[in-house]
């Protein structure tokens, strides 16, 4: 054997060429090897998209804040939207439950489908949509009512409970899911505003859950919380994704890396890069993503 033998190369090139060879001899069947490479770049086992956005643009008056966003929000995953202030991530988040409708002069174009259904369809009931797509805000904002009423309000106006017993059941289940039951069960009649910051935020999550949403949008849910309360919310987010699809806007890169499975990086109104969170935070492809997450601008 010669001393200068080349190291053995992986047989990948052979594997890549073989499907093409078989294509010549076999009729193309939908879903066979020929269609596989298209799905490969974002990871093999990709779940069904819950929400699909195509060419979504948002205008505030004449200013274009989002320049045509195409993306998918995978079901039962946590999708993190990151980017510097003013990049459009919160604007995009608010498109998903039509919160931008409430802003004077805001206009949304493009299409957003949830389970294949256009959420900007004229015949769609926006109130119902917002029950399906719940939202948790940066600052905990409980209603100035009792803990019980904070949660019971939504189910009541949506007619989700036939009687008092059912309503109580919903309240308990929601508080349990939000990890607040043990702390709140003996003080349900006390005002929600009397809870600590972290408890208030979990109360808001419980309130969002109470109307049985499919998607929960979170806009920097931990930015006003201390590290322990933040850890509890993050733990909760991870549990919630069993039952809900979650989209979270966060300025904490570490939080995005910890809680999400998919990450979208926005910059100046564009979706610059999206992909598996593991990849984005260890080996992003775009230089702007790299610069942002490593603290080189923003």
């Amino acid at each position, binding site marked *: *054997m010669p*001393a*200068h*033998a*080349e*190291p*053995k*190369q*992986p047989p*990948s090139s052979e594997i890549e060429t073989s499907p093409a060879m078989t294509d010549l001899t076999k009729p193309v069947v939908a879903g066979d090897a020929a269609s596989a490479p298209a799905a490969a770049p974002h990871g093999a086992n990709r779940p069904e998209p819950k929400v699909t956005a195509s060419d979504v643009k948002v205008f505030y008056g004449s200013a274009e804040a989002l320049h045509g966003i195409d993306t998918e929000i995978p079901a039962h995953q946590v999708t993190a939207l990151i980017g510097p202030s003013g990049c459009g991530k919160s604007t995009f988040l608010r498109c998903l439950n039509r919160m931008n409708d409430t802003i004077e002069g805001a206009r949304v174009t493009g299409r957003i489908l949830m389970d294949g259904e256009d959420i900007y369809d004229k015949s769609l009931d926006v109130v119902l949509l917002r029950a399906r797509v719940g939202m948790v805000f940066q600052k905990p904002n409980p209603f100035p009512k009792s803990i019980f009423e904070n949660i019971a309000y939504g189910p009541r106006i949506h007619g989700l409970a036939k009687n008092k017993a059912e309503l109580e059941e919903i309240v308990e289940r929601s508080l349990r899911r939000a990890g607040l039951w043990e702390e709140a069960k003996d003080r349900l009649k006390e005002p929600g505003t009397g809870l600590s910051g972290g408890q208030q935020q979990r109360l808001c999550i419980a309130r969002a859950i109470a109307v049985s949403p499919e998607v929960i949008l979170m806009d920097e849910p931990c930015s006003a919380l201390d590290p322990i309360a933040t850890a509890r919310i993050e733990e909760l987010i991870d549990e919630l994704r069993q039952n809900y699809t979650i989209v979270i806007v966060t300025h904490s*890169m*570490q939080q995005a*890396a910890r809680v999400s499975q998919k990450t979208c990086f926005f910059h100046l109104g564009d979706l610059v890069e999206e992909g598996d969170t593991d990849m984005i*935070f*260890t*080996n*992003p492809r775009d230089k702007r*993503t*790299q*610069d942002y*997450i*490593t*603290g*080189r*601008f*923003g």
Partner: protein
Amino acid sequence: MSEHTVASFDAELQELRRSIMEMGGIAEKMLADATVALVRRDVGLAQSVVTTDFRLDTIQRDIEEKAILTIARRQPMAIDLREVISAIRIASDIERIGDMAKNISKRTLAISGQFEPQRVVLGVERMSDMVLGQLKDILDAYTQLDVDKALEVWRRDGATDALYNSLFRELLTYMMEDPRNITFCTHLLFCAKNVERIGDHTTNVAETIHYLVTGQPITAERPKMDRTAYETGIHDDAAPGAPGA
């Protein structure tokens, strides 16, 4: 790579790189000196190689501490994270390289004053020169973040392994010729093995550089050609395929 908004973060990463290069320089000199000491039977030089090793240990510990502090302080991401992890890995490889060079010198001290077939010593020297070239190039590749250069070193290591195989056979022959050669030849064999393993560590560093720059591991199979495990007669079935004849 542009600079961080936080300048002291850049300074920390710079400091890690500088320390790695310092370690690399020391290890290079240790291997060169250990080889010269072996060939010339220079006891003083061998002694100095043995005592230099603690410097590598000290800097390696320092790099690890700094890297851990940087992780704790900055929570580095992407290229920065790979940079810090790579520094830890490369420091550990270079530290091992120092240990091997030190071991060569310890053996030089052990065999001083014994009969030596100079020809075999020259074989070890040739191998050591090759590996020294690998070490030098891989440190350059690290400084310049040059993946191609790293891959080139990575491929070259197969030749070193092949040379080790032939040296192994030669030493066995001497030992069979005259049992009085056994002590000397065994020490020399360990020296050759040390050099061969230093070569392996340079390929480790090559793999780390590849990961540092591209974020991907080298997926090809490693050019491993040390077949001596199959040439001792224990694995008779492997003998027909044994290279290096």
